[in-house]
């Protein structure tokens, strides 16, 4: 997934769940978000804020994940995996009710999966269900899912909002009146202004939920967001959009600023399918021309970690490859000349996100120093999707890939907008996807990172940070996040 107006990673934030906070503390919270949902059903629309608000708060899935990406049980209390890794048998939680009072059981799970996988499905992540051959109800509290081939990311993917377990009685109304099994119920939405969730008193773990009321306010303008935080209208802004405005909050004792990481690798994508970027010398020259520190300072005000390949620095299998092509303008210049492209004009089409626009201007200057004239074109998101993503009409662009486990983008063939295809990497990715031994998989992921860095497929810039501003005394928001959602069940005020 990309970081877009629609797909902006919603960063609600952290949590070291300080358990045992006493109940006399404040029990309501006002959270600021930059993006407002359009509809309220995470299984029918990819807008990131829908997941951000509803996934694992109003809706639940079979599994859930922690801040570090470890998979935990949720509606499925436990599971058994067959020896061939193809059959998963989930034991479901008992006594669970939907917010409309109907009972949750294995039929709902089957219904939800059939709906997501079916021919008429408009599920935004239909792909994650593609390996499933059958979903069968064993008894009201047991469900069996069979896969056609091994999928190492299956349990992780089942935690997604797209895999929410919806109720067959209420699914039709979910777009405007979402009914799930989660710790919070949907109360009201005044479009354009605010949305309110309330604690689900019948939740199976209700005693441990400390918030009674959660109010979301939608503020897209960073300066307005900043004023709203300073005037104490908001308690939290987990996906704060403007790194340049953070120092004022850091200097203010009322606030707690947390800078974490996301799954978003920001890359300078080069169109590998056409000249001059089908020539590895040109791609290497671009990699030498880029000065990551300067880009991070200028575009992110220093709040980001540089990357040398396509894997997040907080990941277990991370290798630091930022030194593969250390910044060297002279070398870049020489390589451009050798490849016969020195003095050439290329387009750098930038989507309308601050990280892209700011990085783009700096990269333009860095390429100019190496003898390449990059023409910056600022384009609108719809234009980016249709011209760059669908038609591959570009030389270079800057984009953040915010999905977890997305190294497979490089195995999507020449038709994907990278225009890159190498059998060696495609095979490697196929093995990564089907390897269930974590140690072996990590080893292969490292191999993949090295391959992408050495072949300079793209310019790898930095990991998109997750910037959060919170009122002091607010606990439970994640600092970093491997997913689009933030479980509010862990959030509480210190006494």
């Amino acid at each position: 997934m990309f970081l877009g107006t629609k797909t902006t990673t919603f960063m609600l934030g952290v949590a070291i769940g300080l358990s045992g906070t006493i109940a006399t503390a404040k029990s309501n919270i006002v959270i600021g978000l930059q993006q407002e949902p359009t509809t309220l059903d995470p299984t029918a629309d990819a807008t990131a804020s829908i997941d951000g608000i509803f996934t694992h708060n109003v809706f639940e899935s079979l599994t859930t994940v922690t801040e570090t990406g470890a998979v935990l049980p949720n509606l499925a209390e436990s599971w058994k995996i067959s020896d061939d890794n193809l059959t998963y048998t989930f034991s479901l939680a008992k006594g669970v009710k939907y917010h409309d009072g109907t009972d949750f059981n294995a039929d709902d799970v089957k219904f939800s999966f059939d709906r997501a996988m079916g021919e008429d499905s408009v599920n935004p992540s239909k792909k994650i269900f593609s390996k499933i051959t059958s979903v069968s109800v064993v008894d009201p509290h047991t469900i069996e899912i069979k896969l056609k081939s091994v999928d190492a990311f299956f349990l992780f993917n089942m935690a997604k909002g797209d895999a929410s377990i919806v109720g067959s009685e209420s699914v039709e109304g979910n777009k405007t009146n979402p009914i799930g099994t989660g710790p919070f119920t949907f109360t009201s939405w005044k479009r354009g202004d605010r949305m309110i969730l309330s604690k689900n008193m019948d939740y199976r773990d209700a005693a441990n939920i400390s918030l009674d009321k959660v109010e979301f306010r939608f503020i897209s303008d960073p300066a307005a967001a900043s004023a709203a935080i300073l005037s104490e209208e908001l308690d939290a802004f987990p996906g704060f959009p403007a790194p340049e405005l953070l120092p004022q909050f850091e200097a203010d004792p009322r606030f707690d600023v947390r800078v974490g990481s996301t799954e978003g690798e920001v890359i300078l994508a080069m169109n590998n399918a056409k000249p001059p970027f089908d020539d590895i010398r040109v791609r290497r020259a671009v990699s030498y021309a880029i000065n990551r520190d300067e880009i991070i300072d200028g575009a992110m005000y220093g709040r980001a970690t540089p990357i040398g390949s396509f894997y997040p620095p907080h990941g277990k299998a991370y290798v630091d490859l930022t030194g593969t092509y250390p910044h060297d303008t002279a070398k870049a210049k020489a390589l451009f000349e050798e490849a016969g492209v020195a003095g050439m004009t290329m387009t750098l089409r930038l989507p309308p996100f601050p990280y892209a626009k700011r990085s783009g201007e700096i990269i333009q200057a860095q390429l100019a120093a190496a003898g390449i004239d990059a023409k910056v074109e600022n384009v609108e998101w719809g234009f980016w999707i249709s011209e760059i993503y669908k038609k591959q009409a570009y030389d270079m662009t800057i984009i953040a890939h915010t999905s977890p486990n997305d190294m497979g983008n490089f195995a999507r063939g020449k038709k994907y907008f990278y225009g890159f295809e190498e059998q060696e990497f495609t095979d490697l990715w196929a093995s990564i996807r089907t390897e269930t031994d974590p140690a072996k998989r990590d080893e292969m992921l490292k191999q993949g990172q090295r391959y992408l860095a050495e072949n300079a497929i793209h310019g790898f810039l930095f990991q998109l940070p997750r910037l959060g501003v919170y009122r002091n005394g607010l606990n439970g928001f994640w600092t970093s996040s491997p997913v689009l959602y933030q479980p509010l069940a862990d959030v509480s005020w210190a006494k």
Partner: protein
Amino acid sequence: MGYFLFRRTVGLFLTLFAVSIVVFASMNVLPGDPAITILGIESTEDARAVLREQLGLDEPVLGQYFAWIFNALQGDFGVSYSYGVPVSELIGERIPMTLSLAFSGMALTTTLALFLGISAASYHKKPGDWGVMLLSQLGIAIPAFWLSMLLVLLFAVKLRWLPPGGFPGWDEPLSAMRSLILPTVALALVQSAVLARVTRSSALEVIRLDFVRTARASGFSKSRVLWRHVLPNALIPIVTIVGLQFAALVSGTIVIENVFYLPGLGRLIFQSISNRDLFTVQALVMMFAIIVVLANFLVDIAYVLIDPRLKGRSN
């Protein structure tokens, strides 16, 4: 007057017809695909195809247009692609906000501008006049969003007298009014700068005329002459500008709505265009067109009311 009304009404419908074609055509020419916007880039092609069919996007453009016109004439403006609710509902819930802001903005603009403009004219070439001129020059030069930020920093962040933004709706009249104060002031300060200058120069023209001297000579007080004799005769250019400003105000609230995160029409149209939400954009643009045409129409009527001599000409 009857013919005048008839001509205006026909004009309105022709304008709307032209606007609808332009919007439909441009939304279709614009690169972008509502199905991808809704389902995201990771979606599969078959899921997008199902959604396109559900939304009716796979029908020929001409057919879509005529179906839209046919339904619109019966008061059905379609269902928003991205929100999944009827467009009329989406717009309906936002109208109170934008209209409240537009009217309060307009009221403050006219009050301020008339007062400052007439005062400046009466103190022509004296410090009071220069003061007003300087202020209005400043008002014209300052961008509305910047002024808004300053107001928020002072009254919401520093003094905490007023909320920094948001609009709770008219169900809570008191907080609704409080929420409108800063946006209204931000809107009116800039708009009234222009209007004050027009009022001043128009009043100056009239002040020089014989009947004003006569009025003063017959013993009427200065302020009575200004407000009862000069102002009514100076109104024509002022009303023209007010009309233009009202039209600009309704569409111009987009900036203010953004800075004060108000749930109004400006923000809705902005989001709808980026979401490629054809029906919502279509309905909103038509509505803005109606407002502009209506504002002009009202200005014309106002001319006749202010200066009955124009009545003959309009026929």
